């Protein structure tokens, strides 16, 4: 079994919160504005609520089988072969999620920062960083996220506070968007944005005790829910929903609009640090989960030999989509709308199965 070190709840909260939040920095708010109009900010809260319910089943599973991570639980409940299939599905989902997210990141970077650079170089530097971080290990990734969480949260709040001059309350209405039913439906579907709490189940051996897992999971959902909702509220206040659907990355435009006199203007490159570092952490933790699931599935003792092929696969999948629009409206959309199956539905079914067939934990 791979050795993953131990860390405490604060680091886990920072890790999961940053990886959930870094999804709103890129093209998601634009997609949300297209789907639900002005109701994005409370759609996120509905998503967080559904995610909390989904995480409850994961938490029950982890409580029932103490000190085991989710892969071992799948193997216990489903037996060896179906367990491998389901774990493999989860792992591949993480890999595809990571690749599509990195493609979206690279495309947004190309739009706003490095237009002429070939996409491969952006991705290769990204892969280099991920390689370094995965070699260093999970404990260091968690510590890094704790360390950078101060700057990331400060960056987010500063952007929101400084753009107060651009808020216009009239952009918030109509309040219900395209209809309450539409909002609730999409909110429930997009709860996979908060699905990163599932990673806590994959690395459950590193968190000491079920109380820490509970605390980490719920706190990260609450904190990221509040922050995401405030961010989406800020976007809708600054851009009416008709304009917001045309902007590739609303967070960037929000920071580009800050203009206080002669000196404090055009300060958006400063926030690049915040977004890029948080998306490094996001994609690293996804790739790490994939490698961790893979190693735990086949009970490898060390993850370093798996690392390099996984990164190559990750790069190759990231280069499959043709252009930005396919990525944003096709891939990201489907992952967000259908990810709940992997994150919440399968643990739910597992829990029901384990209750029905009364599978006990191994001695």
């Amino acid at each position, binding site marked *: 079994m791979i050795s993953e070190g131990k*860390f*405490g709840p*604060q*680091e886990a909260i920072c890790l999961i919160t940053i990886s959930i939040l870094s999804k709103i920095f890129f093209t998601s708010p634009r997609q949300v504005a297209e789907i639900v109009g002005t109701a994005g900010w409370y759609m996120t809260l509905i998503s967080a609520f559904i995610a909390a319910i989904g995480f409850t089943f994961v938490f029950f599973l982890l409580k029932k089988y103490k000190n085991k991570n989710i892969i071992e639980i799948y193997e216990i409940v489903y037996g060896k072969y179906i367990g491998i299939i389901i774990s493999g599905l989860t792992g591949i989902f993480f890999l595809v999620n990571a690749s599509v997210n990195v493609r979206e990141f690279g495309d947004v*970077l190309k739009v706003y*920062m*490095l237009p002429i*650079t070939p996409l491969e*170089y*952006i991705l290769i*530097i*990204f892969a*280099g*960083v991920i390689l*370094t*971080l995965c070699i*260093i*290990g999970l*404990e*260091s*990734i968690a*510590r*890094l996220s*704790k*360390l*950078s969480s101060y700057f990331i949260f400060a960056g987010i709040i500063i952007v929101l506070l400084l753009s107060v001059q651009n808020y216009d309350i009239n952009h918030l209405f109509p309040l219900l968007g395209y209809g309450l039913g539409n909002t609730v439906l999409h909110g429930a579907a997009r709860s996979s944005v908060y699905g990163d709490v599932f990673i806590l189940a994959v690395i459950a051996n590193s968190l000491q005790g079920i109380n820490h897992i509970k605390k980490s999971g719920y706190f990260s959902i609450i904190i990221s829910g509040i922050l995401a909702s405030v961010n989406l509220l800020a976007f809708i206040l600054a851009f009416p929903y008709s304009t917001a659907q045309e902007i590739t990355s609303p967070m960037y435009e929000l920071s580009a609009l800050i203009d206080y006199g*002669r*000196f404090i203007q*055009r*300060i*958006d*490159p*400063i926030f*690049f*640090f915040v977004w*890029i*570092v948080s998306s*490094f952490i996001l994609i690293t933790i996804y790739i790490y989960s994939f490698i961790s699931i893979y190693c735990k599935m086949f009970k490898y003792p060390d993850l370093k030999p798996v690392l390099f092929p996984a990164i190559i696969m990750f790069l190759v999948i990231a280069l499959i989509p043709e252009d930005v629009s396919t990525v944003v409206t096709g891939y990201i959309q489907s992952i967000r709308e259908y990810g709940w199956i992997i994150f919440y539905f399968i643990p739910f079914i597992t829990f029901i199965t384990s209750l029905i067939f009364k599978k006990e934990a191994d001695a």
Partner: protein
Amino acid sequence: MSKFFSAIKNLLTYKESLEEQQFELLEYSENNEKGVERVAEQSYISLKLNENLAYINHRFNTIKSQDIIIREFKIGEKYTAFLVFIDEMVDKLTVNNSILRPLMNTEAFQNIPSKEIVEYISNNVLSVGKISRENKYDSIVKQVLNGMTALFIDNCNEAILIGTKGFEKRNIEKPLTESVIRGAQEGFTEDLGTNIALIRRIIRNEDLIVEILPVGKANNSSCAIFYMDGITNPSLINEAKRRIESIDFDYISGSGMLEEMINDQPLLLFPQISTTERPDKSAIYLLDGKVLFIMDGAPFAGAVPTNFFDLIHSPEDYFLRWQFGTFLRFIRMLGIFASSILPGIYLALILFHHDMVPTDLLFSIAQSRENVPFPTFIELLLMEIAFELIREAGLRVPGAIGTTLGIIGALILGQAAVAASIVSPILIIVVAVTGIGSFATPSYTLAFAIRIARFFFIVLGAAMGFYGISAAIVIILGIMCSMKSFGIPFFTPVAPKTNMRPDVIIGQPLYKQTERIEFTNPVDLKSAAAEPRGWKRRRQKDDK
């Protein structure tokens, strides 16, 4: 004139080749051994003086080394004996007055049986403070090499080792690398005894334990380990001792080389052991529950375990009021930030993110770059390398020029370069601020690490702008987060969260620091009463 011609003749005409050849250093072969006969190795002293003498002569190679003195004499005109000591390492007054004179006194030795001569001499005759008796040659030789004197007496199977250390050493001076305005101005020296005394003067506690371990196979130097019994975690002490004792290396002198042998990840850039030249900072480390080690040969002490925030604290923060300490810490953090990231950010801004620079500044930069032939990246590298060269050269220039040559020289050089239109003026400011920032770092090793990391930032900043710099930050922070120094992660009060004394960046008034920092897992956490200022306590009680 004739000399001139003869010189030319010697140079240009044919000469029979003389027998002298060039010296060539060939491989060692058995023919070049030392010519002395190998005397049988002995480990214990024998009773016969002649055998001891012969063995001592052989062991010290006195045929070749001429500074080992062997003084044969008679004790009380009756017993033959000899002294062995190294000429300049002993205190001559002690040898002459306290050893030779009383031993040569005939009256004291009137009726002593020869079996008890050693006992009699150590108890009654020798008027020296430190005496021990040995019968093993290894330890005798080692102690003589440390500056002790060995007394061998005929028909005795023990030799007396007399403490006579008295070599020349440097006086206690101001510490070179860490000077402080308001605080003690004494620094360590190269001699281990002086350094131990300096620390003992500050911590006058019987719980301060000093253990001396031998280090270095060929140079037999000694290393002293300090710790506070009752505060320091015993497993830390054992681990430190285990690592130091297990070193098998020829030459270790000074705690710098020792550090390299015992630190966890020698391949990484950042230091994992904090070094200091000041006794008061060492005392603060000791009372925090750390283990301090100091070696003969260099005036630096090392403390383990350490974390990043220890490397950016300076003892001045404790000697001043806490507000000033906090302010200084902010300035130092700014200095560290500037010395590492500033050139990279400058490159990224100028090459990639033109829109962030204010318009007027951008125009003036554009105008000043009109005449410069190099691209910005090459310009910056040239100035950085020139600055590093000047810094290194300034160490070797003697006297007053050396200190002036540092930054002032670099600035003047930069000014001349600007006037010659090789570089643009704003680059000089960036490079100068970078250099000044690196001087502001309190820990010398950390400053060096940052100087090297700076080039990594420059390359990535020029390649990819802010994206490259973020990638570099993540890689370097990630590597730093994975570093462990004797079991403690490098960013300890922040990254694994411990109940820290909130003294990391914002300082605190001294009366609030009533608990020890927890990350060294000390035995005893409470270091003062809840309100250490007794005058405040009493007044409140009186009020009620």
